[in-house]
């Protein structure tokens, strides 16, 4: 499964990559901000995205809003220090499927990834196949 990992902190990307690897996901492409993600995502065709909020150049919320204009279905998990309820609501409205607040334990992130993928699979099974992703 192709996973796009978007965070301006390399440390944070390494921590999340380790969790993904434990789940057996090694086809991971990294991006360091929203702009970088926007330039990489169309060719990579991610099947899951983990997106930070606070990043230089283009923040994660703007990236999600922009991506959702062209792709409604890619499951997106926001992984961020933004913990206020109002922020979570803002992110969900923008099209985020799940939300993880930093700091997190590897177990929690792992759980959210699995539940997000399960929900996406269930939704895809329930709906007729879209003509274009």
């Amino acid at each position, binding site marked *: 499964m192709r996973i796009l990992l978007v965070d*301006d*902190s*390399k*440390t*944070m990307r*390494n*921590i999340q990559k380790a969790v993904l690897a434990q789940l057996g996901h090694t086809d991971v492409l990294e991006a360091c901000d929203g702009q970088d993600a926007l330039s990489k995502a169309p060719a990579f065709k991610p099947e899951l995205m983990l997106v930070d909020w*606070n*990043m*230089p150049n283009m923040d994660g919320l703007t990236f999600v809003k922009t991506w959702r204009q062209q792709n409604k279905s890619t499951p997106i998990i926001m992984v*961020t*220090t*933004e*913990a*206020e309820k*109002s922020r979570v609501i803002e992110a969900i409205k923008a099209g985020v499927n799940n939300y993880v607040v*930093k*700091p*997190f*334990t590897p177990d929690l992130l792992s759980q959210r990834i699995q539940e997000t993928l399960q929900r996406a699979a269930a939704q895809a099974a329930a709906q007729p196949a879209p003509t274009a992703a």
Partner: protein
Amino acid sequence: MDAMYIKPFIASISNVFSTMMQLPVKVGEPFVKPGEGPSSDVSGIIGMSGDVIGSVVLSFSNPTAENIVALFCGQKYAAGSPDFADAIGELVNMVSGGAKALFKDRKVSISCPSVVLGANHIVAKQSDVPTVVIPCVTDCGTVNIEVSIKDTRAAAANAAGAAAKA
């Protein structure tokens, strides 16, 4: 500065250090920093804007910062390497983000982190806001949180109150 702006930082650093590094934090008595004295060797800095403005600094000695970064990253990085600075930046990001979520009824945005290295450097702050230092003792050494923030809504309310009295 109101205790309502100190407690969130204590709760947040304890949460960040225990969750990411299983590192317990013992918090000492916060104090007001006398003058604009030098910080330690390493400063991770975040700016706050919105209803609360100012800066938050995580201040470490080199050995303490190296110990904590090693725990956070699972490997040692020398102070001054890009990976080291990145880890310090993400720590202050998490501590500040967690703290501002605990501010009551205040909408606050945080900046991307910057990291300053070098013995006894000075992080210049707004002159009209006192800096409160929160000493955080860990097995890796002591980390100081330097909080220099101002509640713009409270300041506006105070000004309005003073104007009404005059």
